[in-house]
């Protein structure tokens, strides 16, 4: 800062002195001093500075010479990276000179500075100025002096080289290459050796050469570099010599043998020049030599770069500690630069790794501060290498620290995104201006044209419009008609679809209803046992009263217990027969869905003054959704019942390793340890004995059912091994009921997904899991996911070159996605950038440097490419143009509007306008009408203010009617129908769910009954068979206990069937006959029997009758009866008969003649015919839900031959 201030002072003084003098004879000396200063640029900056100062001092009245001297000083300042001072110098150089050439030199210097400090906007602003100047100067090259020509060559080459450098650092290789190609050929005539060397050096290490393969490129690059090196050594251009050496160091690191074989002369020359014995140390020797030269040359930037190169060499050789030291030194250089010029603004410096404050990014602060200039590329490079080194040393945190900063810097140096939008805005503005201008012009022309023909056309148009509207021939109407038809078709489709869904739901519902009816029949079978038990009880009671056993009673008890055993066997057979039919619907689903439903039911809790708290969860479980909801509901209801007002019930899910535990906690009265024991471990208990006295009502079956469900899961599959149900409770402090379900790991899901299809979702899912596994530290896993994403992406872009995870063969070649991006292929590039970044991270962690480099490069390049501001270069041209345009435009607009106004006033006759307006109004109204109809609204009246055309109103009414009849009404009807169907489906869904849960639970209850009570009848029988008077007490106790358990179990089952499953419907008798016929045909087909069924006519007195029933149950009833009766060779009749308030439905088999006894017992379990039991149960259900008991199910002989079974249903006469 101080030096810059001093210089400024000097400049001022100098300019003061120069005021009075005219052209001086010292001009030549000034020129020669300037030339010397220029000559020393890359040899010794101090000499340049010295000569430039001198030239400045001598050039009192020679403003151009002075400006040139200032430029040379600015160059020195640039090499020292004193950017602020440089700006001052350039500004005063510009102030001193009026020559474009000098300004161009200043521009080029400014561009250099902007490039280095990463100020893209500034760069392009200056570049656009420079381009203007180049255009101007190139027009008068002939008149130039030799010296000016030299300066011109310098400025021009420097301009192209620096632009190329800028593109190169922005990873836009092709642009950089194109820019270098623009370097004028005259350069090759060795007018300016330094620039020539610079040009060759640029082509050297940058990857700007195109070649057949990697080797070819390397060799070409080496040739350029070697040429630059030899020349720079000859002319002692030390700056370039060192740069070349540094480039050699990097090149030799990986291509030693290639160069030794292909370019032996150059190779050995270099080796002997630097006295390296061992070729392995060659890179190190080059780099150290370069370092030495840069230090002498006092170039901080290049010194730091060389340290970085040294670090890279050590890293390559595996000396991580040493390389870390070099990077530290490089960073130190950065700090030194910062402290030298900006230490007073921000004293903070960069450190290799600051574990105390990993979030703070000092370099970002620097970049954000407009007062500070630094070189982001510089720091970014060091940070990246540091991240690599730390990773190699196993210091993950430090590595991440540096990588994060690296990415931050890449982000920050990206061309300012804000500019992008500004440019786009500008472009829009220019575009708008231009189009407005065009419009104005058009208007002017139009207005002129209109003047002649307007009146004529106006009336013609009015008439044609009217005729269009009158004859239904205009585009909006056609469009509307098409829309309306399409809409109606779509609605109809939707209706059909809904109808189909409904039918499917109905089918499912019917299945479940059948199962339910069968289950109910089973329950009634269970109930059939009770009378026998009561009989045994009665007998035992009598024996107890009399005190002794009689033979008769003993025999009776034995018989009864045998009967019970038979019934039990039947039940077992029945249950086993259906095993596997009632399967659980296992799916994976998020618990949050069910928790949401539970939370919606808070009203009943609010009523009781209990707070319901449902904690959100992310858990995904594998289970039966309906049953899980049932379980949570049951537990919540229980908790609510036993929590006093003011208490709280909370529902939560806790994720374990392989399970999710759903907990329902309350702040109720709690349970004693004995109760907890009973609830957790015994399958069967007396609910009324649990919990506090008097409140035990209804408590228990719910929990038993929950337990049963969990047991069922366990039996179903080994996946459910971790299922559990239990309770934790302390008396007086509330209880927690919980159950466990298997947890679904997200990864598993994704795996399944990706295995099944390579869809777009699998890309994002895999990408997510890639990210997650990186976060969790499963890096190998990450690479697998990454490969999957890449595969999926390749699949999506089959016609494009495929992406690779790593390309070890062609490290210089472009990654495939870059080619896609350049070709304008549509893809999610942000995702690819992220993918490459994640892969780079994983590679970093795994220490796979090759993979890291490839992916990191691909990531950065793609990021830069997709975010580059392609418009920026043109930005400043446009600003100028826009200014000019807008001025002209203003004038044009004013003129044009005046013109139009004038003609409008003269020519638009009021009446003509009014006519047209009315027609347009009608048209507007009609458009509006169509629009409203599209929105499903009813049209409003057409208001006609004047009456030039009285028929307009009629047209409007006609259209209104048409819209109503053809579109609005049918559509709304259709919508209504759809909504009805949807409601119906929702109802079915609800009922189906309920039935399903009921069936599952009944299933459980029945199997519990089977298991728990199987053992007793045989015990009783054995005891009774050998009973003496002394055994009465024992038998009595056994019977009582059995009775108790049995009643309890029955109650559990009854609690389930108490919910109605019966849906009352009126069904016509014709339909009933059809049902019977189809059930019969179905059954015959199933059993492969071919027998006739004759269906009698409906008697006339029943012509208008219907029966009150549930169609699904009636169907099952008919089917069950037929199943019982059907046999090969039978002959069947079906008839309906009048029977008072009932209708009798009769099935007759005229071939068989069962005994009276068999007919009597047909509907008892003794016969072992399950279908008759189902039939009996269904008739019983009818009885229960009719509210008019009296249904019959009778089996009897029929005259003259065979037997018949009939049942009665309540009659309902149609009005």
């Amino acid at each position: 800062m101080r030096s810059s201030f001093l210089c400024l002072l000097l400049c001022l003084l100098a300019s003061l002195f120069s005021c009075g003098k005219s052209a001086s004879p010292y001009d030549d000396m000034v020129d020669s001093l300037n030339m010397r200063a220029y000559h020393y640029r890359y040899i010794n900056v101090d000499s340049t500075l010295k000569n430039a100062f001198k030239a400045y001092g001598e050039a009192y009245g020679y403003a151009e010479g002075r400006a040139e001297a200032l430029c040379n000083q600015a160059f020195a300042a640039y090499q020292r990276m004193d950017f602020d001072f440089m700006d001052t110098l350039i500004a005063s150089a510009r102030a001193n000179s009026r020559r474009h050439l000098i300004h161009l030199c200043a521009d080029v210097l400014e561009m250099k500075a902007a490039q280095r400090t990463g100020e893209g906007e500034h760069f392009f602003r200056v570049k656009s100025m420079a381009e203007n100047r180049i255009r101007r100067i190139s027009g008068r090259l002939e008149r130039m002096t030799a010296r000016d020509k030299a300066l011109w060559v310098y400025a021009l080459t420097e301009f192209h080289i620096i632009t190329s450098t800028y593109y190169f650092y922005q990873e836009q290789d092709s642009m950089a290459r194109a820019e270098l190609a623009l370097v004028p050929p005259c350069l090759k005539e060795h007018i300016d050796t330094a620039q020539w060397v610079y040009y060759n050096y640029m082509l050297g290490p940058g990857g700007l050469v195109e070649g057949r393969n990697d080797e070819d490129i390397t060799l070409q690059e080496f040739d350029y570099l070697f040429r630059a090196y030899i020349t720079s050594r000859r002319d002692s251009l030390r700056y370039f010599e060192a740069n070349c050496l540094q480039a050699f160091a990097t090149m030799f690191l990986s291509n030693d043998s290639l160069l030794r074989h292909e370019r032996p002369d150059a190779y050995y020359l270099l080796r002997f020049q630097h006295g390296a014995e061992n070729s392995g140390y060659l890179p190190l020797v080059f780099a150290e030599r370069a370092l030495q030269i840069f230090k002498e040359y006092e170039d901080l930037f290049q010194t730091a770069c060389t340290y970085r190169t040294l670090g890279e060499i050590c890293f390559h050789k595996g000396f991580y500690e040493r390389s870390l030291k070099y990077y530290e030194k490089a960073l130190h250089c950065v700090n030194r630069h910062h402290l030298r010029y900006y230490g007073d603004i921000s004293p903070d410096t960069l450190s290799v790794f600051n574990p105390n404050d990993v979030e703070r990014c000092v370099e970002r602060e620097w970049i954000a501060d407009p007062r500070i200039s630094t070189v982001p590329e510089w720091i970014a490079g060091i940070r990246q290498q540091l991240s690599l080194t730390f990773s190699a040393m196993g210091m993950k945190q430090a590595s991440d620290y540096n990588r994060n900063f690296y990415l931050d810097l890449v982000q920050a140096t990206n061309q300012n995104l804000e500019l992008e939008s500004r440019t786009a805005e500008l472009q829009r503005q220019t575009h708008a201006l231009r189009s407005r201008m065009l419009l104005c012009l058009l208007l002017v022309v139009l207005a002129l044209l209109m003047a002649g023909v307007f009146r004529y056309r106006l009336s013609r148009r009015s008439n044609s419009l009217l005729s269009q509207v009158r004859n239904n021939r205009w585009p909006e109407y056609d469009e509307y008609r098409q829309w309306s038809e399409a809409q109606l078709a779509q609605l109809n489709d939707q209706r059909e679809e809904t109808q189909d869904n409904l039918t499917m739901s109905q089918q499912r519902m019917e299945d479940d209803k059948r199962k339910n009816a069968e289950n109910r029949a089973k329950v009634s079978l269970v109930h059939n046992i009770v009378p026998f038990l009561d009989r045994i009880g009665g007998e035992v009671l009598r024996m107890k009263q009399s005190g002794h056993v009689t033979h008769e009673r003993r025999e009776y008890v034995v018989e009864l217990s045998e009967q019970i055993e038979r019934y039990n066997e039947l039940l077992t057979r029945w249950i086993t027969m259906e095993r596997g039919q009632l399967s659980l619907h296992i799916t994976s689903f998020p618990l949050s869905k069910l928790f949401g439903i539970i939370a919606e039911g808070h009203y009943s809790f609010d009523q009781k003054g209990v707070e319901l708290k449902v904690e959100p969860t992310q858990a995904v479980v594998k289970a039966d959704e309906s049953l899980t909801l049932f379980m949570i509901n049951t537990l919540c209801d229980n908790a609510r019942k036993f929590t006093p007002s003011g208490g709280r019930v909370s529902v939560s899910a806790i994720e374990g390793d392989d399970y999710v535990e759903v907990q329902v906690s309350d702040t109720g009265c709690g349970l004693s340890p004995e109760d907890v024991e009973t609830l957790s471990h015994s399958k069967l208990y007396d609910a009324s004995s649990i919990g506090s006295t008097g409140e035990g009502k209804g408590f228990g079956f719910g929990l038993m059912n929950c337990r049963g469900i969990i047991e069922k899961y366990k039996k179903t599959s080994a996946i459910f091994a971790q299922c559990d149900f239990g309770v934790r409770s302390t008396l007086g402090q509330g209880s927690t009921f919980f159950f466990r379900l298997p947890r679904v790991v997200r990864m598993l899901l994704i795996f399944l997904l990706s295995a099944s299809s390579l869809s777009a979702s699998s890309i994002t899912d895999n990408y997510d899991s890639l990210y997650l596994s990186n976060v969790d530290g499963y890096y190998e896993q990450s690479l697998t996911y990454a490969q999957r994403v890449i595969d999926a992406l390749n699949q999506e872009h089959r016609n494009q070159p495929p992406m690779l995870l790593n390309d070890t063969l062609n490290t210089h070649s472009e990654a495939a996605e870059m080619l896609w991006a350049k070709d304008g292929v549509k893809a999610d590039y942000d995702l690819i950038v992220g993918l490459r970044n994640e892969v780079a991270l994983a590679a970093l962690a795994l220490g796979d440097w090759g993979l890291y480099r490839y992916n990191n490069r691909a990531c950065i390049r793609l990021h830069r490419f997709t975010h580059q501001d392609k418009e920026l270069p043109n930005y400043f041209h446009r600003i100028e143009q826009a200014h000019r345009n807008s001025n002209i435009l203003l004038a044009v607009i004013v003129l044009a509007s005046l013109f139009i106004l004038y003609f409008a006033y003269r020519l638009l006759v009021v009446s003509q306008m009014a006519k047209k307006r009315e027609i347009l109004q009608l048209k507007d109204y009609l458009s509006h009408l169509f629009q409203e109809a599209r929105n499903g609204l009813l049209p409003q009246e057409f208001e006609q203010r004047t009456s030039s055309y009285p028929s307009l109103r009629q047209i409007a009414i006609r259209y209104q009617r048409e819209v109503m009849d053809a579109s609005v009404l049918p559509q709304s009807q259709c919508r209504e129908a759809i909504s009805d169907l949807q409601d119906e489906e929702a109802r079915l869904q609800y009922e189906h769910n309920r039935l399903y849960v009921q069936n599952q639970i009944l299933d459980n209850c029945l199997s519990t009954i089977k298991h728990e009570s199987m053992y007793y009848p045989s015990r009783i029988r054995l005891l009774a068979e050998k009973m003496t008077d002394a055994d009465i007490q024992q038998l009595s106790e056994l019977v009582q206990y059995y009775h108790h358990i049995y009643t309890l179990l029955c109650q559990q089952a009854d609690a389930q069937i108490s919910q109605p499953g019966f849906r009352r419907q009126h069904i016509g008798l014709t339909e009933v006959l059809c049902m019977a016929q189809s059930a019969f045909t179905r059954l015959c087909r199933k059993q492969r029997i071919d027998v006739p069924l004759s269906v009698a006519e409906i008697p006339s007195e029943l012509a208008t009758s219907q029966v009150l029933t549930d169609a699904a149950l009636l169907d099952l009833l008919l089917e069950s009866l037929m199943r019982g009766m059907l046999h090969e060779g039978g002959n069947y009749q079906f008839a309906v008969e009048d029977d008072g308030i009932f209708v009798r439905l009769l099935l007759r088999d005229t071939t068989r003649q069962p005994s009276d006894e068999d007919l009597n017992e047909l509907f008892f379990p003794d016969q072992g015919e399950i279908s008759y039991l189902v039939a009996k149960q269904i008739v019983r259900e009818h009885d229960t839900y009719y509210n008019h008991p009296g249904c019959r199910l009778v089996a009897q002989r029929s005259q003259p031959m065979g037997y018949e079974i009939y049942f009665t249903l309540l009659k309902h006469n149609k009005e």
Partner: protein
Amino acid sequence: MERFKVIIVEDVKLELKGTEQIFRTEIPEAEVIGTAQNEGEVWKLFRQAEPDLLLLDLGLGGSTTIGVEICRQVRTRYPQCHVLIFTGEILNERLWVEVLKAGADGIILKTGELLTRDDVMLVMKGRQLVFNQPILEKIVERFSNSVMSEALKRDAMINYDIDEYDERFLRHLALGYTKEMITQLRGMPFGTKSLEKRQNELVNRLFPEGERVGVNATRLVVRALQLHLIDIDNLEPDAE
């Protein structure tokens, strides 16, 4: 005791055996003149000889309520014959009522002591409403519940301090009267404002603190119904 004739209607053979045994061992006076397993057999037996007692099961074969019908017919066709229901229908209380209406002399549930000599003898002596212990227990339970709920109602009137106007107000609200309409009633000499005040007071009395927020007329009326302050079976407007 004189001998009397019995017909037993029972569809389950094994149960029939037990019942017959009870008659044989405990009621020797009874002469079982026939047993029937379905409705047809019943009428056949009746045509052969008219019994003094019909022991009737309610469900026969596939028809679970046929006993009611048989009972009704026997009472009309053979008024001298006693009918005693002997059934396992423990849960279906409605059937009990139906069969009593149809003229049964009593109901014996097939549980506990089953059929005893005492029960049969009482019926033979012409006693109505003969029940055995299990059914009596159920009846008494029902009875005490209903008595208790009546008592609750009277208590509620006093506990919630409900006067004649409160009752009338609530009753008419329940019938869908608006406050304006209620003010027109002869028995309600109040204005709308005063009725609103009354409603608020009622809310305060009938609802515990914390539940009073957002109580509208419907909720208030429902609460009154729950507390038996107004009788849902007897909801009539005042005669004007």
